């Protein structure tokens, strides 16, 4: 059984104009020692699905799932106190904007110390020693002198390192990194990704790396799941995904990369992701898909795992040995 096992997760928000489905029957699985990347354009439900797992969504969210299991525990029925003992300890998360998750009023040393106190009950002297070790581990120079620094005195890269130190404080089994380098320059991004992957290997953690950057996926992930409009449209090992994407969306997305362009004109995907009011009845990608047939406007099938469990009636890059499930209407 996987460390994290989510199946059929759906999250709907109550909005002034009705219900909005941000995550739609999505599965997420990740085990110790592996790096899963969740990739998709903005608004595809990547962050919301993770916040649902951590219990960090507002009351306007309706969450349903067949299964949300972490380390053998059912996270759906867990009470608030028990959840607080897991989140931040066995399961930790870092975000795109480290500044917004650090408290501007307290020093770096104090904030890491608080995590150590709450989750591990360490005494003052041990906390100080452990905090210095953690800062050192995440590559912060002269860690002792950084204990008394406030978040606004740090650069973007340094505050992301502090966030990582805080997330690692209680030795998590699962680390979720939500666009951890999106706000950083590429040379700093390279440093942070190297740090994250190194720590993941050393500690044999499960790492879920959320990103919209195909380059980052290619260079860091082992397994990749692609999200579109709240749905998981396919999942493959990273090498296979880039060689033989099975969903037309993944395939089109990869072709739209400037670095893969053959001519001046980039193959682009027409139109935009559906919103609250124009969610298609069948396959959500159908209005933009160049393979779509009439039947795609009525319903869509999930293919077998051999085809990346792709959610498509007419998957692409299909080999002779693969069996394609026939499309069925509605």
């Amino acid at each position: 059984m996987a460390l994290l096992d989510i199946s059929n997760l759906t999250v709907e928000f109550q909005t002034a104009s009705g219900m909005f489905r941000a995550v739609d029957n999505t599965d997420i699985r990740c085990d110790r020692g592996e790096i899963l990347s969740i990739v998709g354009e903005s608004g595809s439900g990547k962050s919301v699905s993770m916040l649902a797992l951590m219990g960090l969504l507002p009351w306007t969210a309706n969450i349903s799932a067949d299964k949300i299991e972490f380390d053998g525990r059912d996270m759906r029925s867990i009470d608030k106190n028990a959840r607080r003992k897991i989140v931040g300890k066995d399961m930790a998360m870092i975000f795109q904007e480290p500044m917004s998750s650090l408290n501007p009023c307290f020093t770096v040393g104090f904030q890491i110390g608080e995590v150590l106190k709450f989750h591990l009950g360490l005494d003052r002297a041990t906390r100080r020693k452990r905090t210095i070790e953690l800062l050192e581990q995440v590559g912060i120079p002269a860690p002792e002198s950084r204990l008394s620094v406030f978040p606004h005195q740090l650069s973007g890269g340094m505050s992301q390192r502090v966030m990582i130190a805080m997330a690692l404080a209680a030795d998590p089994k699962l680390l979720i990194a939500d666009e951890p380098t999106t706000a950083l320059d590429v040379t700093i991004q390279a440093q942070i990704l190297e740090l994250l992957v190194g720590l993941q290997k050393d500690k044999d953690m499960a790492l879920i790396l959320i990103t919209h950057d195909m380059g980052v996926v290619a260079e860091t992930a082992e397994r990749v799941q692609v999200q579109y409009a709240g749905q998981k449209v396919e999942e493959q090992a990273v090498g296979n995904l880039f060689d033989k994407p099975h969903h037309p969306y993944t395939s089109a997305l990869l072709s739209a990369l400037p670095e893969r362009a053959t001519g001046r004109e980039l193959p682009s995907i027409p139109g935009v992701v559906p919103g609250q009011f124009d969610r298609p009845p069948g396959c959500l990608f159908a209005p933009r898909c160049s393979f779509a047939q009439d039947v795609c406007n009525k319903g869509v099938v999930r293919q077998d795992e051999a085809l990346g469990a792709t959610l498509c009636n007419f998957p692409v890059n299909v080999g002779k040995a693969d069996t394609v499930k026939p499309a069925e209407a509605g």
Partner: protein
Amino acid sequence: MTASPLISASNLGRFYSVSGGMFAPSGTVKALDGASFTLEEGKTLAVVGESGCGKSTLARLVSLIEEPTAGELLFEGEPASAQVPEHRKLVQIVFQNPYGSLNPRHKIGTILEEPLRLNSDLSRAECRKRADEIMERVGLRPEHYDRYPHMFSGGQRQRIAIARALMVNPRVLVLDEPVSALDLSIQAQVLNILAELQEEFNLAYLFISHDLSVVKHISDEVMVMYLGKVVEAGAAKTVFDNPKHPYTQALLSATPVADPHRKKKRIMLQGELPSPLNPPAGCAFNPRCRNAIEKCRAEAPALVFDEKTELACFNPTPL
């Protein structure tokens, strides 16, 4: 005599004096320090470098939003000035954030026609006709004329910003991170429109971006900047295929490539960008540079021709 280039800059600089607040030291920020380049019709000059290296400052100078504190900027051989109406029309700018640059209270039609009303004596009907033409050209529909910015997606707003820039028939577009906020599929749409427009109107682009894969795709020439200074410049293909400056090399090597089978050795840059208020002596890159020698700590290298490209480095090595 050959015609003067559309835009030429020599030793262009912009310094800001900052009065230190409670926490910040005061001093001078050399946001842009001695940039020289020319921009020709129909060509794209890309400016790359990490945040804070002076890209947007350069963009503001070239689009006459701000005046340089040093150096010279010429439009077709004449000193550029916001007082000259032709100069104001010659260059238009498009920003990264289409949300911030469109007045939320105005309809798209009003937003598009505003530059024409300010800069020409065309009649209402003529303005409207021009707006309709340009809207069609960038892929907006006629009914969009009466809508407000908030009713559009990010990609469409960037189309609106491009359309507005084109209203006065400029010959140069300064594009400051025009696709950085857009999703991949939308980014491709906008890059395609820019390529088509350039072809059709023979536009020159000053294209600013931190995304090297986009720059590789779109540019003819490239200028790499670090802490306000140009460190390497030349034909984009030459610079990207054979980067000589250790910073260009590090930047290229840090850019992730969407190919999981490529096992590449990465030049990992140590440390971070130094404070612009207190830049290192000598070559500003020396504390992070793997090639640094004694001289680099004492003297600042000048940008000089080195075979096909321009380079500011005392100790370049091939990649």
